[in-house]
């Protein structure tokens, strides 16, 4: 009996609303494309594109979700990503791609340690500290690039970078395997929701066809999301991350090293931003000093769309990725269908507020019940 109420709640608006919103939006855009006689909107090609466009924000969003769960905040991710890209593009010609990528991520992590140490040990609010690093790190990018675009000119290094970022990975068989694994797990544990997820994955794979392939960043996003999801869901570290955000004092008095967890979240956030920056640098083989400006707000909007609480203690990385996909589906739809780019920001903003309203009102009802 517990099980039935459990999966019904799992399909409710509050728990699964972001997935419904994504599906409804896709259906709506497909309908508009059809009625205007445009090429099919729901093609494997276009869906792969949306995922590709969402991948960088998705990677940062997953780490941001962990950050928000612990009750902190990181505004500096986009600047850190730009810094990592600048380090990569600046160093790759002289020390090669792998070492330059490592240097980029180490740079990013050191910004995270700086953020986290100041927040934890000086006790300044994370919003203020990361607002400061948002500006300062962007300034550092300008200094490093001397205000101009940098680019990698050695063909062999460029080749390596493109291979890292633009290789297309065939996904048909992996998706089918994932669907089978999910269904098997669902059957074994009698979990209806997981079975549904398996069906959706299988349907997607069959819809996309045997030649379905996506760019590498989509795979990186999927692997990173799966890893973080598993850590949050299955490990003691995961539980303690939620406990630190849910009630830091109770966690501390239960023997949890709250400082280490909060610092770790800053490091994870910056490392993910560094990795996203590496991917961004590889995409063009170049970096413009204003690259990714404002992307931190899209990252946070993804997490909010996914229902992550800004007060800590609650959040899901899968839903954050769905939130990022939803935002990029909106962008993609406006471009592909030529719906007038001027409306895009207006609609996106309304969607974020509407989502937050649904979560808040739903949450209040639940508390009252």
């Amino acid at each position, binding site marked *: 009996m517990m099980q039935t109420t459990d999966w019904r709640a799992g399909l409710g608006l509050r728990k699964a609303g972001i997935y419904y919103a994504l599906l409804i939006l896709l259906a709506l855009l497909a309908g508009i494309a059809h009625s205007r006689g445009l090429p099919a909107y729901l093609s494997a090609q276009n869906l792969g594109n949306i995922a590709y466009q969402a991948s960088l924000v998705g990677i940062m969003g997953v780490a941001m979700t962990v950050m928000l769960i612990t009750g902190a905040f990181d505004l500096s991710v986009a600047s850190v990503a730009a810094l990592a890209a600048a380090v990569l593009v600046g160093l790759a010609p002289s020390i090669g791609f792998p070492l330059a990528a490592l240097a980029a991520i180490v740079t990013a992590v050191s910004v995270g340690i700086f953020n986290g140490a100041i927040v934890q040990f000086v006790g300044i609010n994370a919003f203020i500290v990361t607002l400061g690093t948002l500006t300062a790190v962007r300034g550092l990018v300008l200094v490093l690039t001397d205000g101009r675009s940098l680019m990698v000119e050695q063909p062999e290094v460029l080749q390596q970078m493109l291979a890292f970022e633009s290789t297309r990975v065939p996904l048909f068989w992996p998706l089918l395997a994932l669907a089978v694994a999910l269904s098997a797990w669902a059957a074994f544990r009698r979990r209806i929701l997981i079975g549904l997820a398996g069906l959706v994955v299988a349907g997607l794979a069959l819809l996309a066809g045997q030649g379905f392939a996506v760019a590498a960043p989509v795979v990186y996003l999927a692997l990173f999301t799966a890893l973080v999801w598993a850590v949050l869901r299955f*490990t*003691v570290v995961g539980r303690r991350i939620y*406990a630190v955000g849910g*009630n830091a004092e109770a966690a501390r008095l*239960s*023997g949890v090293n709250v400082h280490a967890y909060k610092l770790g979240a800053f490091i994870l956030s910056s490392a993910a931003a560094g990795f996203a920056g590496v991917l961004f640098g590889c995409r063009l083989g170049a970096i413009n000093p204003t690259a990714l400006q404002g992307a931190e707000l899209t990252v946070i909007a993804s997490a909010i769309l996914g229902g992550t609480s800004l007060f800590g203690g*609650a959040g899901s990385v899968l839903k954050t990725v769905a939130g990022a996909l939803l935002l990029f589906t909106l962008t993609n739809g406006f471009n592909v269908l030529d719906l007038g780019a001027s409306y895009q920001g207006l609609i996106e903003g309304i969607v974020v507020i509407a989502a937050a309203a649904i979560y808040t009102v739903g949450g209040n009802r639940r508390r009252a019940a």
Partner: protein
Amino acid sequence: MVGAPLLQLAGVEKIWPNGTVALRGVDLTLHAGRVHGLLGANGAGKSTLIKVLAGAIPASGGTVAWRGELVRWASPRAARAAGVATIYQHIPLVPTLSVVENMLLERAGGWRADRAGCARAAQVASLLDNPFDLDALVGDLPIGTRQMVAIAQGLMADPALLIMDEPTASLAGHERERVYAVVRLLAAQGHAVLFVSHFLDEILSLTDEVTVLRDGRAVLHAQTADLDEAAIAAAIVGRSVTALERRPRAARAFSNPPPEGEGDQPQAGGGVLSTSDEARGALPLHHRLWRRSPSPSGGGLIENPPALELRDLGSPGKLAPTSLTVAAGEIVGIAGMLGSGRSELLHAIFGADPAARGAVLLHGKPIGRTPEEAVAAGVALVPEDRATQGFVAGMSVAENIALPRTGLFQSPVQEHEAALAAIERLAIKVQGPDAPVGELSGGNAQKVVIAKWLTPDTRLLLLDEPTAGIDIGARTDILRLIRGLADEGLPVLLVSSEFEELIGVCDRILVMRDGLVIAEVDPETTDEAALIQRASGNFPSTGMAA
């Protein structure tokens, strides 16, 4: 003797929507120019009565007559307009505003600091003999001066009645004197004062009349001059039933071992909870659910150190250097009022107070000075305020119980079983292990907080007010459990404001006041009234703990 009463309560009742009866018909008469003391144990109904008087909650029955007319205040604003000012225990001031702006907070009008208001504030300040600078930021003031600001704020509307809820509970000695002086001054100026306090000595020296509440009834009305501390303490305690029967000492396997471990006690040393195979079947569930790793210090020692030893453990400004020992299986009670240093002592032992200095030895081994190291060494703390320190409201019962567990992976099946076992063992009323703790009642949530530590890895149990705000049934469950754990060999330190509980379950009781252990008493030869007297009176230190 005096004129017509200012305020007269007759048969005031308060029944909460969930059926809890807080007030069962209280009569209370206050006169202008007199200080009226209100006392009672925790849960006696003092706070509820104050809220009714302040207009914060409506009474369920009875009448309130103000200057001879029946009134029914619907909001705090209405009560204030009538002339009742209430100063709550947790001083609700805005720390980022100046003193004068805090005093003007309730004032309507357009300007931020109108001239008339500022003049009134200055007048009130001079009335109180200018204890503060009107332009100082409240956040910069010491706690005693903030109390003065709160009093000044209450006096802004020139109330006829001033209600003060434990105004001295968090103050040091000289700061208390200033509050006393102000109370005497106000009474002399014709205000009525209702003074709520835990401290018997200040009630005796300050008030003209006394009312004692017990279980929602006023059980004593008297002129202070006719009373002494013992009479008041007896009225506070009453003939209330004792939740636990004390068992004779001889019947307890582990109580009161000789002061310096003699070496022949099988339970002393590290292995108090280790279980032989024959014994395992007879032990409670939790022993079977968690297998305990063999204790490194167990066996083979000729001289067994005490289970817990504190050496000069202190924290500047909060806790004087304290040395004491607790034997395996012993429950040591700590009796003290709010702010006596009782919670600070437990936090210092647990490593949760970074300023604490001194050594804590568990079975002869020093333990680290952070909560993580303390937990790793087997120290468990059930904190005072369960909602803000004890549980994570959004997490399920099973997850909260599993919170101190270490290791890499969660083990849902085992955790589920452990939660089921705890629910059964502690009689937690909950739908199941997956229910969020935030939805449980106080007593059940507290049981979850305790259940968190019911593992064989726990080698010292620190309990801070484990029964506060809990109904009598759950309270008895919890006390029985504590006694049972001690009988299995666990050393326990128990802080409680319910001295009756301490007498019921403890092997000895330490009395604390002002950050200092001032006495050690034997629960078999003391009673609650005597304990209240010791913890709340200015008694000379008779038996400083070694």
